């Protein structure tokens, strides 16, 4: 059987449509052009409300104008992430020989990955049922393959840093946020599903933290590379700074659960810092593009 599959090798039926990050970045509407805000204050408020709901520039709350669809879209994203997490952990079981060298993995790591496969398969089943509950069709929204892309790294340790520590860490933040959303909306199914999946995610992140320390105990250079890869993934997928410590951020950093998953306070602070950087860079990009589009440096929507 082939080792080291690419995203293109993954099996999907025709319900799924993949959109990669390049396509998203090249969407000309992301510039927030001159027409992005309406002509009057009411439309501005309306628009901002919609953005908070769907685009992730404000807190995910049930009373946001577009909250139901924002929740449906986000949970569909989680669903396809679960499929990719299953595929990624499965590949890590198979792609590497047993051994102590850098291109090999210990048997216990494979066992952890096998356990994660079991969890992710269960999460897929939960997500399918949750999707149906939320009135969403499988494949209704696009699939971003970024989780599996992080699981394509030829170094198993970097896979764990990118997937288990960075992306499953993001999943902790998302599940915690959506559990709160379910609670506030009075949706018992959403709240219950998130709570159960959150518990598993903490374990998956802890696996990443534990293996990172074990495998690099005598190899600081490899540890540095793994942490650097994790930082890149953390920043790239901080939702343009939308995942942060800020009260109004759509996805809040779940500090307590991250501590339980083996993150130190300094590491959590670093992730918060990366999110801030990502947010500032995103805002600067939008401002620059608006200026180019309107010929004006004023980035405040007209009242």
């Amino acid at each position: 059987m082939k080792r080291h599959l690419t995203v293109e090798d993954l099996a999907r039926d025709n319900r799924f449509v993949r959109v990669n990050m390049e396509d998203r970045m090249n969407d000309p509407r992301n510039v927030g052009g001159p027409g992005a805000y309406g002509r009057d204050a009411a439309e501005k408020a309306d628009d901002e409300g919609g953005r908070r709901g769907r685009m992730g520039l404000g807190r995910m709350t049930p009373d946001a104008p577009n909250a139901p669809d924002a929740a449906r879209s986000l949970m569909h994203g989680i669903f396809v992430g679960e499929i990719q997490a299953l595929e990624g952990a499965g590949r890590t079981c198979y792609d590497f020989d047993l051994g102590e060298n850098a291109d090999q993995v210990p048997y216990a790591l494979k066992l952890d990955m096998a356990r994660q496969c079991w969890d992710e398969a269960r999460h897929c089943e939960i997500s399918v049922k949750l999707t149906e509950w939320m009135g969403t069709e499988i494949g209704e929204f696009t699939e971003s393959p970024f989780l599996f892309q992080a699981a394509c790294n030829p170094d198993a340790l970097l896979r764990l840093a990118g997937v288990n520590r960075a992306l499953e860490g993001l999943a902790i933040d998302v599940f915690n946020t959506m559990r709160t959303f379910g609670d506030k909306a009075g949706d018992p199914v959403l709240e219950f599903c998130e709570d159960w999946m959150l518990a598993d995610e903490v374990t998956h992140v802890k696996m990443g933290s534990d293996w990172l320390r074990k495998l690099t105990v005598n190899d600081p250079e490899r540890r540095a590379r793994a942490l650097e890869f994790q930082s890149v993934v953390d920043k790239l997928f901080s939702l343009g700074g939308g995942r942060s410590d800020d009260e109004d951020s759509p996805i809040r950093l779940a500090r307590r659960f991250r501590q339980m998953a083996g993150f130190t306070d300094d590491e959590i602070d670093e992730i918060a810092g990366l999110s801030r950087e990502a947010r500032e860079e995103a805002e600067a990009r939008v401002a620059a593009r608006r200026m180019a589009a309107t010929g004006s440096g004023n980035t405040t929507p007209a009242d």
Partner: protein
Amino acid sequence: MGNVTVTPEQFTLVFFEADRIRERAAEIAAEVGLVADIHIEVDESSPVGRVRVRSVEPIEIWAQGGAFEEPKRPRHLSERNLVEALGRLLFRVKDRQDPGFAEAPPDEELSLQQQNIWDTYALGRLARAGFEVAKPRWLYHFRTRQGFTDVSDAAFARLWAADGLTWADLEAIRAETEQARTAA
């Protein structure tokens, strides 16, 4: 039957066709029973999905491009989302011409619950007229707004099958779901 106009005529940021939007709007308007001219302004620069009736006389609809967009094919038109967005608004415009809706507050003063109940009533009629409507999606919207209760589900079923309601009827249903939500 009045004229339907769409701006922009040529979309440059998304792959929408003004003719298609015009056709579907005309079909829905005919079904709803609106005979006046309709103007639809699409803000193609926004992927967000807000829509509003900007004016009832003349009828002017404003929509952000995301409202008509196919969620799995960014920047492409979704027939279903287009129909659902326009159907909700055009039924509301038609309802406002009915004396039974004289007491309804202006759109900008509708609460999320009021708007949601009115949308559900419109979407049920749209579905019965043969247009494709994602009923499970709107049930989730309804539950999020009106509560995850048996009373709310029963209210949704009644609204979806209803015709000839007045603003007072919609308000009575809202009060009913609110009471159940508060008690839950």
